[in-house]
């Protein structure tokens, strides 16, 4: 039986240079130019990026929570004191756990993390008047108050870990090592505003003595200023709404 293919013949006829077909071909080329802009399959491979949405689960996220009670390798937290800030006797630790070496590196790390996570509320000098407080958050703790000067270092760790008052827990944002580094840095901040002249290195002592001699007597509002943290009076409590 002879094969007849009338469709083919019409298709071929289309390819003959007729006025309309050239325009169609040109359109096709232009269209392909815009088609290159489309995302292709390989751009979005059939796998999940972090936090990509998924229709498989009720809350719409591909990231799954581990089964309650799951302990990741190396995260058993056997060293309870290190993760709670409390010794076996239930008392606050008075020093950074021995696992961490308190050196300049640790203090620099603490400064870095403090400025990222704490300074929004506590301010970079630790007086509790950070930008977020000035925008209406509840007054944050002043590290230069008597209460916090006499607090143990384990207490600071605990507050960072579990929150305190309006302060939320920072355990999810700052790992335990860094929380200890921050606690150590809080001591640096406190010392920076409450050092005795005799505790300074000799060259600084001379400088400080000269500066103190050159400075006029502090006025009645010295406690609210930058230089007033060494005073016993609390830092001004009013918040500044801008």
């Amino acid at each position, binding site marked *: 039986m002879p094969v007849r293919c009338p469709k083919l013949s019409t298709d071929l006829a289309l390819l003959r240079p007729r006025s309309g077909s050239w325009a169609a071909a040109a359109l096709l*080329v232009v269209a392909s130019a815009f088609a290159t802009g489309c995302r292709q399959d390989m*751009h979005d*491979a059939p796998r999940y990026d972090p936090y990509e949405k998924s229709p498989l689960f009720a809350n719409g996220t591909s990231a799954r929570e581990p089964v309650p009670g799951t302990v990741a390798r190396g995260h058993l937290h056997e060293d309870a004191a290190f993760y709670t800030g409390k010794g076996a006797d239930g008392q606050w630790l008075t020093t950074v756990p021995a696992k961490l070496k308190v050196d300049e590196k640790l203090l620099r790390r603490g400064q870095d993390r403090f*400025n990222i996570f704490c300074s929004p509320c506590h301010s970079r000098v630790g007086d509790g008047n950070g*930008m977020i407080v000035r925008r209406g958050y509840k007054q944050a703790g002043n590290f230069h108050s008597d209460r916090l000067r006499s607090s143990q270092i384990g207490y600071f760790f605990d507050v960072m870990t579990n929150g305190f008052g309006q302060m*939320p827990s920072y355990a999810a944002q700052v790992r335990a090592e860094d929380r200890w580094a921050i606690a150590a840095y809080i001591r640096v901040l406190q010392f920076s505003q409450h050092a005795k002249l005799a505790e300074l290195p000799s060259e600084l002592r001379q400088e400080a003595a000269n500066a103190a001699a050159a400075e006029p007597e502090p006025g009645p509002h010295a406690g609210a200023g930058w230089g007033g943290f060494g005073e016993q009076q609390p830092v001004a409590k009013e918040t500044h709404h801008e």
Partner: protein
Amino acid sequence: MAQLFSRTANTIAKFSIYGGAVLAGALGWLVISAAPRSSYANGQGVVYKQPVPFSHDHHTAGLGIDCRYCHTSVEEAAFAGIPPIATCMNCHKNIWTNAQLLEPIREAFRTETPVQWRRVNDLPDFVYFNHSIHVAKGVSCFVCHGEVNKMPLLYQQASLQMEWCLDCHRNPEKYVRPRSEIFNWDYQPVGSQLEVGKKLVADYHIQSMTNCSTCHR
């Protein structure tokens, strides 16, 4: 038999031959070069509608919050991290608690349902990318993401195309910063960037990584 073509047909024929070549060239340029570089194709500069019109400008330049307060894993992981709603609520349980604009955030917090943000900087899936190594080698957030501190609404600053990646991978000295300045949106190099960059490339042992398998692995 009469002439099929008039004399003017000669001009038309010549014009169509040369004109055709020019047209083909223009089309080629459009297809190969211009179209893929257009923001239509690569999403550069496009602002997407988000569940909440979050302003990076306000939270960084305005309030002085460090990038890492929210993007906590940028220094140690491939993914910089999108903050959980709990991070928003650190402040917003106390501030702007009645703002209608923030209702999707509060609702997500109440119902423990994730907010569906529209991803802005999205590399193709066949590209391996790791934030931590770039940060460790002196590539600032602002080099790739642009002046996020001046973006009331976030958009993709770079083309994110391979030629853009290669520009830095070939000549890292044009872009690297001291490690201490990675998150500083006001950073200006002391002296010329090229001189500072060359020194940093040597100090940080930065290699010009242009092997295909560096990124396509």
